[in-house]
């Protein structure tokens, strides 16, 4: 059990508790973080769970797969530390992480 903070584009913060192993997308859905509805259920099929990980935490989120990279390459607010939330499975090492949400999802 640890904490991850989601910050909306308008700076509204959502401090959430998570169990390692849950994806960032699922944590956002479980905590009703606005804008993350996990449309495809985590299949990396829809591109609607774009999140921007705080720089210092990005290295802990694992590598970006080819499909995820292709999906991210077309998201308008792509940043250096962008991920699709459904493709990041949380670990104990992410306790305290901050994740920013873009203004719009695709």
């Amino acid at each position, binding site marked *: 059990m640890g904490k991850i903070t989601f910050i909306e584009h308008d700076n509204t913060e959502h401090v959430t508790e998570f169990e390692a192993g849950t994806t960032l997308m699922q944590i956002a859905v479980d905590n009703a973080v606005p804008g993350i509805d996990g449309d*495809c259920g985590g299949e990396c099929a829809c591109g609607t769970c774009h999140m921007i990980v705080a720089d210092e935490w990005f290295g802990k989120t694992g590598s970006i797969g080819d499909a995820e990279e*292709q999906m991210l390459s077309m998201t308008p607010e792509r940043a250096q530390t962008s991920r699709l939330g459904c493709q990041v499975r949380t670990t104990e090492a992410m306790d305290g992480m901050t994740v920013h949400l873009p203004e719009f999802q*695709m």
Partner: protein
Amino acid sequence: MTISEKQTTVIVGGGHAAGALMTILLQKKYQHEVVLVGEEPHPPYQRPPLSKNYLAGEVDQASLYLKPRVVYEKAGQQLRLGVRVEQIDRDNKTIRLSDQSTLKYDQLVLATGSHVRRLRAPGSDLQGIHYLHDITDTDALREKLVPGKRLVIVGGGYIGLEVAASATKKGVNVTVLEAADRLMQRVTGPEMSAFFYAKHRGAGVDVRLNTAVTGFEAGDQGRVAGVTLADGGTVPADVVLVSIGVIPETALAEAAGLPCDDGIVVDEFARTGDPDILAIGDCTHHRNLFFEKMQRLESVANAVDQARTAAATLMGEEKPYDSAPWFWSNQYDVRLQMVGLSQNSDQRVLRGSAEDKEFAVFYLREGSVIAVDAVNLPVAFMVGKQLVQHRKSVCAKALSDPRTDLKSLV
């Protein structure tokens, strides 16, 4: 607002649209009481994995749930599961449930989904003939998928083909019988049909096109032993899956006198003929501003998008439904992502080739992109989403030229 002004919004149905609406209302801090009444014992869950990795035994039941049940309750939302809505009394704004209780509503949202189309033919009530629509159906079919058994699938659409792929993975001998002259005829173009035909044949599935089914042959103890064909032949079977589409579930709405026509008729704000009743998802025949006409869609994207529309309507905002539909399917190592509806295209442009296992078909009408089907090429899907949503005119030559960066076309 005082407590006495608190109203009750009841959602009828426990599928994806209902679940998405619950979450979106929480996100938007909806102030009224929300109660979901679902016939299945499960909280809202993802249906797409049923024919894919859930059937293949790769994921467990809990992972299908949109959220664990406790998460709704912690947020103050009620789930009444395992109970059916028997009747809507619009005059008294109450619904009657199968446990004989009644529930008062201020706003009602019908998210009743669809039910499978049954094949009525001689022998169709034999043991061993399956349909696939919910967890119970899938568990029953999964039990029968034992290596070496013969599974005959009637219908070569998404569900039939996804089951064919999942069953093949488990060592089952699969035959697919399709009445049309190509697979997935209703949802995709001929190039994609040919690609999936080759893919399934290559995996050892006996795919038969132009093959109409006339009935089922009985074996021992009332069990199905074969599927009989219009040409007089029989295909031996240990298990049969009939996957020939779904029918919108409108019985409750019809009995309540709400306008229905191939679905519960709603406007672009998800409103039915009754100002206090909305309807969302597979069950609706809805006015869709993207298509500028009435439309019925069977998809998760439609369920979620209409849930967003309904949430806005419930909160007094007007956000018409105007998104381009999208779909996906996984079969073997193929990830198919689709956006738009391709049926009315007048030109098809191929990018890449099927041999490369990464390609896309762009469907144009009068020069504008109306749909894209992408195989293992997510970037084409994402570019397609934007081209289709904005009905962009794109030069066909640029689309097919591998030197064109797809992103430059948006």
